[in-house]
């Protein structure tokens, strides 16, 4: 089977589609956190899952322990979205949000809740908006914590994630002072990437 790859026009289109999605997600996150979210250009790469950790490390500069939340999505384009952030930065995020996260006796639980909230917003808005622009309506499974303090390498272990290929749509949300960054990555099967290629071609030829 040949490697599913994106040609230059498809990559450009997916990047712009992701850019629109990122704007939607950022607006919701800005509302939740009552702050301005700095956006950068989303980056799109197709890699084997075994190479994903290295690629993401190069793209983000992360080498500290991370917290990762996973959420599956299904349509004919299906896969899993991961929201990854540095575990050490979550306390700073909590400090931004008032009750019930700050000063709570259940601080550990609350931090986890906040990470879930952030991940849910990013995944929901981003994945829905991307697939919506490609004419799909995804069904989401419940989000789950992949790990609270793990290395990037263990996030992308093949026995943990069922996907062979990662479409790395790296979308980067940062607080203005850069104290917190979240990265969203979409993992998909090769079949799904082919469906996505067709959807991108259809979008391009409609113009």
């Amino acid at each position, binding site marked *: 089977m040949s490697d599913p790859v994106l040609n230059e026009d498809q990559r*450009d289109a997916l990047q*712009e589609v992701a850019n629109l999605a990122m704007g939607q997600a950022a*607006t919701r996150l800005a509302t939740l956190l009552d702050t*301005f979210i700095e*956006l950068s250009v989303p980056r799109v790469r197709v890699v084997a899952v075994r190479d994903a950790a290295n690629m993401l490390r190069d793209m983000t500069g992360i080498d500290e322990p991370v917290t990762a939340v996973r959420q599956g999505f299904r349509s004919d384009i299906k896969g899993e979205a991961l929201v990854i952030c540095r575990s050490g930065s979550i306390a700073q995020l909590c400090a931004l949000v008032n009750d019930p996260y700050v000063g709570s006796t259940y601080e550990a639980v609350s931090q986890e809740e906040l990470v879930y909230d952030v991940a849910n917003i990013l995944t929901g808005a981003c994945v829905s908006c991307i697939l919506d622009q490609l004419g799909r309506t995804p069904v989401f499974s419940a989000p789950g914590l992949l790990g609270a303090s793990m290395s990037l390498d263990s996030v992308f272990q093949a026995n943990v994630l069922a996907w062979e290929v990662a479409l790395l749509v790296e979308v980067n949300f940062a607080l203005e002072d850069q104290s917190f960054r979240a990265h969203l990555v979409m993992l998909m099967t090769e079949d799904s990437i082919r469906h996505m290629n067709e959807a991108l071609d259809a979008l391009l030829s409609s*113009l």
Partner: protein
Amino acid sequence: MSLPIVIADDSLLARKVLTKALPPEWDVEIAYASNGGEALELYRAGKASVMFLDLTMPGMTGFQVLEALQHEDLNTFVIVVSADVQPMAQARVRSLGAIAFIAKPVTPEALLPILKEYGLYV
């Protein structure tokens, strides 16, 4: 004489969508820029009576282009076209001298009233 306009966006798809949203009868000469630096060069070459400007671009962002234009004479109508629809982003570009903010994906319906308001298209 055709009105010189610049469409600045790093995405080919976005440049196409915007071009398609322009009024078909509008007599313009379009120059394209795929980053902020190119947009400024086109402005300095007198090719931007109107500039459609994306915010998130690699290298020089749309915010930085607006800041640079303020240090020159800002002799252009800048319409920001962006996916970053946070209220604070909209306020920021207006304070930097943009005449309008349009959310992506841009439509003819969103564009036309702005062009008319500023007498750019009648």
